[in-house]
């Protein structure tokens, strides 16, 4: 969030300067200037972009291919069924459930502080895995 404010201030400043400068008027579009600012700034590349991560867990050969996955609040986890039979990814505490995932189908979960961490496949109860909540920043 802090990064966003710095960037927007920088941007506003630059646009303001460009707008107020008779040499700049009409010389370049504001969009091109924004792109140049972003590309030129090594520590702020992608600063507008969400800082959370996205993970993919493949369901394949009757297993959740990552048995343990470390996630933070705000991260997204997507399960993709790569088997020929349907599966689910279902929290043991029932706090989330992908529903039936046929071959090729996927389900995305956004992690919150309430997300149940242990999960299994409702159809194949021997298939178990878990998420681990990383609370560091």
């Amino acid at each position, binding site marked *: 969030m802090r990064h966003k404010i710095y960037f927007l201030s920088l941007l506003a400043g630059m646009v303001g300067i460009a707008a107020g400068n008779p040499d700049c008027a009409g010389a370049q579009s504001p969009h091109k200037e924004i792109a140049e600012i972003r590309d030129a700034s090594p520590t702020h590349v992608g600063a507008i972009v969400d800082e959370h991560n996205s993970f993919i867990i493949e369901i394949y*050969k*009757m297993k959740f291919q990552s048995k343990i996955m470390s996630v933070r609040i705000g991260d997204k986890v997507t399960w993709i069924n790569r*088997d*020929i*039979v*349907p599966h689910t990814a279902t929290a043991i505490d029932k706090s989330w459930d992908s529903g039936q995932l046929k071959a090729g189908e996927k389900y995305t979960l956004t992690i919150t502080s309430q997300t149940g961490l242990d999960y299994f496949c*409702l*159809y*194949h*109860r*021997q*298939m178990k895995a878990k998420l681990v909540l990383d609370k560091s920043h």
Partner: protein
Amino acid sequence: MKSYIIPLLLSVSFGASACATSDEGAVAQTVVMASSPAELNDLEIAHVAYTADNIDIRYANIALDRSSNPDIHAFAQTMIRDHTTVNKLALALLDKLGASAQDNFLSQKLNADAEKIVAKLESLSGNKFDRYYATNELNYHMAVNDLVENSFIPNIENEEVKELFEAGLGIFKGHQEHAKMMTMKLDK
């Protein structure tokens, strides 16, 4: 070496599935030595798979009808879901190859043995039914998985048929694990 072991194993397994619930007595099984599963061609193997799937679907429907145990129901629904899926894919592949599955001695034997298991299942109820069903599922998957892994997959000629059987084997080994969990829970 393989040609007599598999039919023997099959017969023993089908016999064992009845023997495991010792209070009900063993169902007699005949040992068929006439032909070897390893000698079946791709279309006969496909027929055996289709037959084995349908038998398991049949057992599952009996379980949905006769059992009130939620674990048994969940397992039975998975058997129906998964074996129906594999059957659909097998039929689609045969269609694509312009072929039909061929009946054979092993499909006939599986069906004949299944009739005896069905009769047994339909004579039981309550916890006795659940234990018999679960134990039979474990033994049935063990026997069929052994057949698929050791007699079929090494002998299948068509690559796509082989791939489907390899995927199927993975699923059915999962079923075997699930059946094991189910029997252990019933034993408590």
